[in-house]
């Protein structure tokens, strides 16, 4: 893999955001604030960290990526489009009402190893994948992106305890720690802090980074395969929900917000570039 500069990665993530807004504003449905929270994380994964072959998506030795927070799946579509993984399908045709997204419901697309959406399921699946690789002495890693508010689901902690107890050092959990659920800030609901200690107590090696900074994300994610710890890794990526768009940034009740139509999209893009 040719490594990109951080400037190139920032430029790439910006173009992905642009495309996301263009496509999903036209559709009038999506999760803008989630997409803006996770874009740099996904960009780091798909353009620097994950091992896969875009032209051969079911390559057996690929890293597995489980997007547990299924409401964040929208941002994967521009990534797949950019990587040429939509085959002959047009992105607009896939995501429109009546569009067929069946190609993503296979087990061989990075990001759609598991069809997320029902929160709290993905981490257990990721732990099972990692366990399978460990038993078979395979070198591929499993990466799993969860939302911080998703971890109110008890099943996440069932999986976290399992991963720690089984020393799944081939499992990397990335938490999109934007501090917001749907209706309120996490610390106003049931405080998640001390959050890092929760993961540590389950047997994880924890690192905290700025989830919008490639300068922090890449070093935290890179080299984990060569760094034997005997423990699974948890990267707590501190992010801002709706990052870069002031009217949506860090605001409760914007979870399911998506601009509708060209005019709205233009306004959001102005905020993003402004």
């Amino acid at each position, binding site marked *: 893999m040719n490594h990109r500069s951080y400037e190139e990665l920032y430029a790439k993530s910006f173009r992905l955001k642009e495309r996301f807004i263009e496509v999903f504003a036209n559709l009038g449905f999506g999760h803008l604030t989630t997409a803006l929270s996770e874009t740099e994380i996904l960009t780091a994964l798909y353009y620097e960290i994950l091992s896969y072959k875009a032209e051969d998506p079911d390559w057996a030795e690929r890293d*597995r990526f489980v997007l547990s927070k299924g409401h964040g799946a929208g941002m994967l579509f521009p990534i797949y489009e950019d990587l040429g993984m939509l085959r002959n399908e047009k992105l607009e045709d896939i995501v429109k009402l009546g569009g067929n997204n069946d190609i993503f*419901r296979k*087990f061989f697309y990075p990001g759609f*190893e*598991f*069809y997320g*959406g*029902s929160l*709290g*399921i*993905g*981490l*257990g*699946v*990721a*732990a*099972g*994948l*990692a*366990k*399978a*690789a460990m*038993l*078979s002495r395979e070198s591929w890693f499993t990466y799993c992106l969860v939302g911080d508010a998703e971890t109110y689901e*008890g*099943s996440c902690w*069932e*999986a976290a*305890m*399992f991963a720690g107890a*089984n020393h799944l050092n081939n499992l990397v959990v990335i938490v999109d720690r934007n501090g917001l659920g749907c209706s309120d800030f996490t610390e106003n609901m049931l405080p998640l802090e001390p959050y890092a200690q929760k993961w540590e107590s389950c047997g994880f090696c924890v690192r905290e980074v700025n989830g919008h900074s490639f300068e922090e994300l890449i070093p935290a994610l890179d080299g984990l395969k060569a760094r034997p710890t005997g423990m699974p890794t948890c990267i707590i990526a501190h992010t801002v929900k709706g990052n870069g768009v002031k009217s949506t940034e860090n605001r409760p009740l914007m979870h399911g917000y998506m601009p509708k139509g060209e005019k709205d999209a233009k306004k959001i893009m102005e905020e993003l570039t402004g």
Partner: protein
Amino acid sequence: MQLQENNATTVRDAFFNAIYRYTFEGADICITSADLGAPSLDKFRRDFGNRFINVGIAEQNLVAVAAGLAMGGKTAVAYGLNPFPVTRAFDQVRNLMANLKVPMTLAALNAGTCSAESGYTHMPVENMSIMRTLRNIKTVNPSDVTISEKVAELTVKRECPVYVQFDKYIRGRVYEPETIDLEKGFITTGDGPITVVAYGICAKWIRDNLAVFREQGYDLKLIDGFCLPLDKSSFVEELQQAEAIVSMEDGVVYGGIGSLVMEILSDYDMQKKVKRIGLRFDEGYSSIYRNREMIFDDEGMTLASVMRKMEVCLA
């Protein structure tokens, strides 16, 4: 209802014995367990210890980890105590098994009221109704060990998601292997104007008592619906031949196999006399400490009561 016990192999142990045999022969099988063992699992744990994965009493993770193992190329069996693998982990079952069709087997100990002594919490009496709402999953109730062995065979083939629930009081072999077809989903025994549709312990009970019914003047054909979904055309053919139909199940009648019969009759515009026998809990869940036999007595699932219902059906 008298439940006979003997030293023959249980349906649960027959399944795990077969799983052990396949593993010994080279199948890449992993068993996840929600802190549940079995005598037949002891040798698996001894000989393939790293492939026996105890997740603790955590049914949601039980199903999710097994799905991950299956997606990672393993033949995955998830094993837990009913009703919890279905009721506590329903969302995982629904999304991973029914929707994504992850080829794994969810094996649960206890069916219906077989563990009634442990109280309502441990009676998976709604599980069949719940599982009937899902597509893409084969739902199996072995009424003999041959069926259990067929489930193990299907598990190794990794063709589809499977849910199997084992009644701890069902032992021994009745059916020949070549007569058990999991695609067809049922097998018939006996013949007569009354067709009884049942599964699990009720199928076994009817089967064991066919001679008794006959002596009392009731000639029955038993349809042992051991694997849902049943092959529709074969099942419709059987129902068309019936003069009267009685369904019997160790589970709530709401959404169970009796409901299935009524749905088929409706869908195929058939008119038959039907009586549904099963658990109704019309008076709510009893506070009286009861075992299965007492529950069956209270719910009218006795020889005399079943015969009365058949009489009404034939009238």
